[in-house]
C-alpha cells in the first residue's frame, strides 16, 4: 500500500487497537439498543445504522480504504449504488403491485 508520497504506509498498532475497541463498544451499544429497546420503534433503523458504522470502520482502517485513491473509493460507491438501486426498485415493485 502506497500513500500519496509513494511511501509504504504501516498503520500504527495503536490505531488498529483503537478501531478494535470502538468496534467492541459499538457491539455493546447495538446489543443494549436491542435488548433494552432504547429506541423502541426505531430499533431496526438504529441497529442497521450501528452496523453501517462498524462496517465503515472496518473498510476505512482494516481494509485501508481511508488511504486509497479516488478510483477505488468510486468503484465501491458504484457497487453499493447498484445494490441500493436493485433493492430500491424491488421495493417499489412490492409496494405498488
Amino acid at each position, binding site marked *: *500500500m*502506497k500513500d500519496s508520497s509513494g511511501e*509504504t504506509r*504501516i*498503520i500504527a*498498532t495503536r490505531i*488498529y*487497537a483503537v*478501531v*478494535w475497541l470502538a*468496534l*467492541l463498544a459499538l*457491539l455493546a451499544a*447495538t*446489543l443494549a*439498543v*436491542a*435488548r433494552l429497546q432504547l429506541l423502541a420503534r426505531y*430499533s*431496526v433503523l438504529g*441497529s*442497521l445504522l*450501528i*452496523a453501517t458504522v*462498524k*462496517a465503515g470502520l*472496518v*473498510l476505512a*482502517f*482494516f*481494509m485501508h480504504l481511508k488511504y486509497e485513491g479516488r478510483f*477505488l473509493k468510486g*468503484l*465501491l460507491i458504484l*457497487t*453499493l449504488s*447498484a*445494490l441500493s438501486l*436493485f*433493492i430500491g426498485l*424491488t*421495493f417499489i415493485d*412490492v409496494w405498488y403491485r
Partner: protein
Amino acid sequence: MSTQTGHIDAAGKKMGMWFFVFTEILFFGGMFLLYSIFRYKYSQDFHNAAAEENILLGTVNTAILLTSSLCIALSISAIRRGERFFSSWLQLVTIVMGVAFLVIKYFEWMAKIDIGIYPDSPILLKMASGEILFFGLYYVMTGLHGLHVLVGCVVIAFMMRFTMKQTINRGNVARLENTGLYWHFVDIVWIYLYPLFYLIT
C-alpha cells in the same frame, strides 16, 4: 505477476482483489434483498422466529470475528516491519478464531436441528410461512457465510506457509494483504447478519 525485471505489481493485485470483493458484495446483496422483502411482508413472523436465536452465542461470535480481523491486520503490519514469526503467529491466532466461530456456529445449528427446525422438517413446515422463510434464509445466509469463513481459514493457512518460507516478505506482501481484504469482507457480512438475525425481534 512478476516480470523479467522482478517488478511486482502490488497495485494491480490489490485492484483485482477489490473487484472480487465487489462481486461478493452483490452475491450476498441478493440474499439481503430477499431478507428485506420477506421481512417487510412477514414482519410479525420474522419477529417471532428471531426470538429462537441465541443472542449470547451470536454476540460472542461477532466479538470473535471482529478480533480476528484485528489479528490479520496486525499480521500484515508485522510482516511489513520484517517480523516474520510474529506475523505468522498472528495468522495462526486468526485461523483459531475462525475455527472457534465455526464451532460455535455448529452448536447453534445443532440446537435448532435438535428441536426440529431445519429445512423441510415436519415441525418447520407447520409454522407460519414467514417463519419458514426466516429459518430458510437463516440457514442459507449463515451457511454461505460459514463457508466463506472456512475458505478464509484454509487460505490463511497457506499464507502462514508462505510467510514461513519467506515467499511472503516485507517487500512482497500482496497475497497476505489480499487475504486480509477477503477476511475483513467476511467480517463485514457478519456485522450485518448479526443484527438482522439475532437482534431485531
